[in-house]
């Protein structure tokens, strides 16, 4: 019984320890709205949960950008890219930094770093 209690107590401690170490970032989605740039890659987020993405390296203009919807729950940034032909391409990222001037997120084996640009 003493041994059981020992393992039980150790488990609780472990849970508490690991729970305490778990990331619990909560980013303000209002900071996400606006135009972000990463080199030739651009993203624009609107407050209504829509946005679009384009890359000028491929001779794509902003008015030709492709749409997505987004949600940001805590640090979980979900982009559902909408295809004109029908169908969606979901992308899930973890936001690591979101300030009024910088946005960093990672997922799908990639890391992205954006800076806020005007207009």
């Amino acid at each position, binding site marked *: 019984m003493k041994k059981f209690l020992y393992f039980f107590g150790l488990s609780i401690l472990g849970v508490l320890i690991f729970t305490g170490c778990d990331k619990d970032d909560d980013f303000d989605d209002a900071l996400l709205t606006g135009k972000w740039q990463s080199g030739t*890659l651009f993203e624009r987020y609107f407050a209504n949960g829509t946005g679009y993405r*384009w*890359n000028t*390296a*491929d*001779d*794509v203009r902003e008015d*030709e950008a*492709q749409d997505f919807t987004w949600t940001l729950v805590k640090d*979980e940034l*979900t982009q*559902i*890219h909408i*295809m*004109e*032909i*029908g*169908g*969606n*391409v*979901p*992308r*899930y990222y973890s936001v690591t930094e979101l300030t009024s001037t910088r946005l960093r997120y990672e997922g*799908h*084996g*990639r890391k992205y770093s954006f800076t806020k640009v005007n207009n």
Partner: protein
Amino acid sequence: MKRYIKPAIITVLSILVVLFIIISVALWLVFTPERLTPIVRNQAEKHMPYQTEIGEVELTFFSTFPQFGLRVNDLTILSPYSGATNDTLLHAGQFTGIIDFKAWWKNDQVVIEKIVLKNGLVNLFTDSTGNSNFSLFLDENEKIKDETDEKEKSDSEFSFDLINIKRADFDNLNIYYTDLTSNIVTEVTQLSTSITGKMEEDNIIGSIDLKNANIIFQMEEMYTEVGNLAATGDFGIQGDEITGSFDIKRGNAIYLYDTMEAIVKNFSGSISGTMLPDHIVGNINISQSLITFGYDGETYLDNASVIIDAPSSTFIPSRVFLNLDNAKASVNQLAAHVSGTMEVDTSGIIHTDMGYQLENWRIREIIAMIPPAFHEYLEGIETDGLVSSTGKITGIYSDSVMPLMDIKLQLKNGSFNYAEYPLPLRNMNGDVHIFTDLADDARSFVRINRFNASTTNSSFTTSGVINRLFSDIHTNLSTSANLWMEEFNHLIPEELNTSMKGRLNGRIRSNFTMSQMENMELEKMKLSGSATFTEFEMVYDTISLKATGSKLDFALPNPDFSDKNPGFAQIKFSTSDFFASVNENMQTTVKNGELLLETSDFRDSTRVPQVICTFNLEELYAEMDTIRLSIRQPNGRFTLAPMAENPEQPDIELYYKGDYLELFAGENNIEIGKVDLRTGLQHVAPSEEDFFMQWLINGFLDMSDANFALHALSYPVQIPVVKMDFDPENFNFKEGRMIIGNSDFYLAGEMRNILSWVRGDSILTGRFNFDSEITDVTQLMSLTSGLGIEESVENLDEKTSADIANNGEFTGPYMVPQGVDFILQSNIRKVTFGVDTARNVLGEVIINDGILVLQDLTFSTSAADMQMTSIYRTPRKNHLYLGLDFHMLDIQINDLLNLIPDIDTIMPMLRSFDGTGEFHIAVETYMDSTYTLKMSTLRGASSVVGNDLVLMDGETFGQIARRFWFSRRAENKVDSLSAEFTIFEDQVDIYPFLIVIDRYGAIISGNHNLDMTFDYHISLVRSPLPFRLGLNVRGTPDKMRYGLRWPRYGRYYRPSSQRLVANKQLELRDIIRQSLLQNIRRREENQNQE
């Protein structure tokens, strides 16, 4: 008996000798001049009122044998008078008189056996007051007359029963008479004549033999002289009737008045007739004369031979009435016959009723009589011919009124040559009737019964009427001509650079007035005619015409005028062979063509003329530069009319029907077997620049057996048949069968909003059924690429139009037509797209304003039955959108990889599977102009479901199987496979899926990049092993790295941990699959609704 003869002769001779002796004694001894002369002088002094000088008086016997005569020599009566040129009133060189005293004594008859007067002179003078140098004779005569009257009162009879002048000879008698009261000077000189006469009671008869006389009569400015006059004649007076007949043997005459001069030489003839107190009837004949006539310094006749024969002529002096009956006068053999009357009334008005006839007057002789002053008008003119005329002149002639002239003119064998008109006319014959009073339009006319003339090779004839001669001349003529055109080249001004050949045979009828002609009032004129051209050729500058067997008919106004047909003019043209060329670069040939043109007045600038043109040709050929057009049996009708609401703009209708048309234009070739076109064009917006904006077009086209090989089209287009209605907004393809390149299709449907599309107000819409045995998509795309795309400055650097290589091949990206909304309901048995082939293609092809959509297309390939929806959009040439929604429900996986090799790149592990599966993919991307993917725009989602698959034994599988201690077999059965993956830019995400092989089950997830680097995780969720394993596979296919890891997923898709990433992936996988399946459900719903 003989013995009595001798004594008788002796006795008679003795008596004669005695008588001779007695007479001689009486003449020379008793009645000597010395004794008679004083006696006569005394008697003269007693009885003559003027001083009389008598040279010698003698009694003659032997010179006047057998009568005694009394001869007076040098008898002179003097009457000096102031103003007279001579004191001598009368002088007779010798006067001899023989009177039959026995008749006087016994029978109370005056018989003058002979009177001879030689060298006589009579000089009479009357001054301006009326007194004359012979007035005392008048007074003596008055006295004698009074005495005679007294005696007549007592005897009441003439004292002599007979006065008989057997012979009166005057030799060299000169008579001068000057009357200053009338300014008359009369001279009769060198008068030699013999006169005989007899007066018995009131009857006088006599004869005259005028051997010579010179007569001068001068009054005021008039001077008349008759010289060398000789004539013989008889005359008689019976009561008031005087008859006479004279032959004029010779004579000359001069008449001068003011500027008029008339000289008559060598005239001879006769004159006879009867003269009553107011009635003269007679014959006048001038058998010869030479007349010179001048006026105002101009000589009108110069020694012209004039002959006059006026038989049965009547003259009534009191009425100044002249009646000629078949009188004939000729001047230089130009003879005129005149019959009729002429009368001058008291007011000076002349009344005529005169007929005439001219016979064969030679024009050359008429012209020869034209005065030199007028020769300049005839310079260069040579004309001849015979002119005849008959006519009648009736009515009144005065200062204001002309008589009515009824003149008929005939011309025979006329000729005309004018130096500046190098086309001599000959064989001129005419028959003209002139009827006029030179005043009254209503009565006057000129009727050309016939006038014909010819040149060397041409001829023409005209006839008709010309009236209203004195106001607005009106002509109604009919002219026929047979012209050899080459003759008229000289008449064409050189600057026109025109020449003609061939023959024209034509007829023209004209009916118009001069004012209409001057004002070009064509609408009031009547003109009609026809012309037949034979071997006709004309060259005008660079334009050449040739017409063989052509005919032109025209009429003004249109004889077929009606409510539907314009009334101004009608032209008919037919030709068996017509050729026209310009600059040798343009030429047209027509064979057996007919054209009918009817038109309204085209000069009305306020409205478009109404024109109807009907044409029917057997063959038409035209060539210009590299363009050649050939048409067989073109026929139709072209109408032009003013628009009802805007007459200044045209409303056109065209009906055209042709059997065969072939057009070569450079590298373009069009052949059309048959065309039936009915169209209407209304020019509703002339201010617009674009043709389609200006015109409203509608109609119907039925075309068959057409072939188009156009440079702009990469492939030939064959149209076995097309039938369509069209109007400004709509094209209605009732039937359209076409073969374009490798494609053969039947097209039916409607195209709408055409005009609105041109205006930019709307897009062009079309709904068609597209039924085809075979369709080559690549070729059709190259044909339609770039339609409707406008170039703009902004896009100059990257043109949005289609790229066509020099060889005509389609090289650039396919640009979807803009501004159009076309839906083709397709039913294609075979479709080729490059090397790919599909069969039984059903579905819609939508082209909507730059977007090409293949909507719910189902088709079969060798691999599987497929469903596809595709969007191809071309906003920019370097930014091309392609979206595919592709569903293959029963396909061999290896066929899938062969069909779409790119799938191997997206999901390389499929290479390890074999079997039948279900494949869904939705993918979209943008491409540049070379169709290179813009990886940043690549999006895709796919789902693969397979059952009873076989996992192929490959190198990769071997590596993995060794890590999991799989049994190595050539084929490993996979019970089921259900995987979803997405494509985002250059990354493919494989969402966790379960494969079951034999006793093993594994969940695989991960991602790889299109550069073929990957990062996968495999969780072994079912195995004979007592524990679970996970394996990470990273690297590249050539260099893979493996590492055993704790399994990420649990059995039956449950995540092996509660990590949110895994949960989210499962959630997203469902999103992907549902969105893909939604496309299939939508199609099924549409099919159910249909």
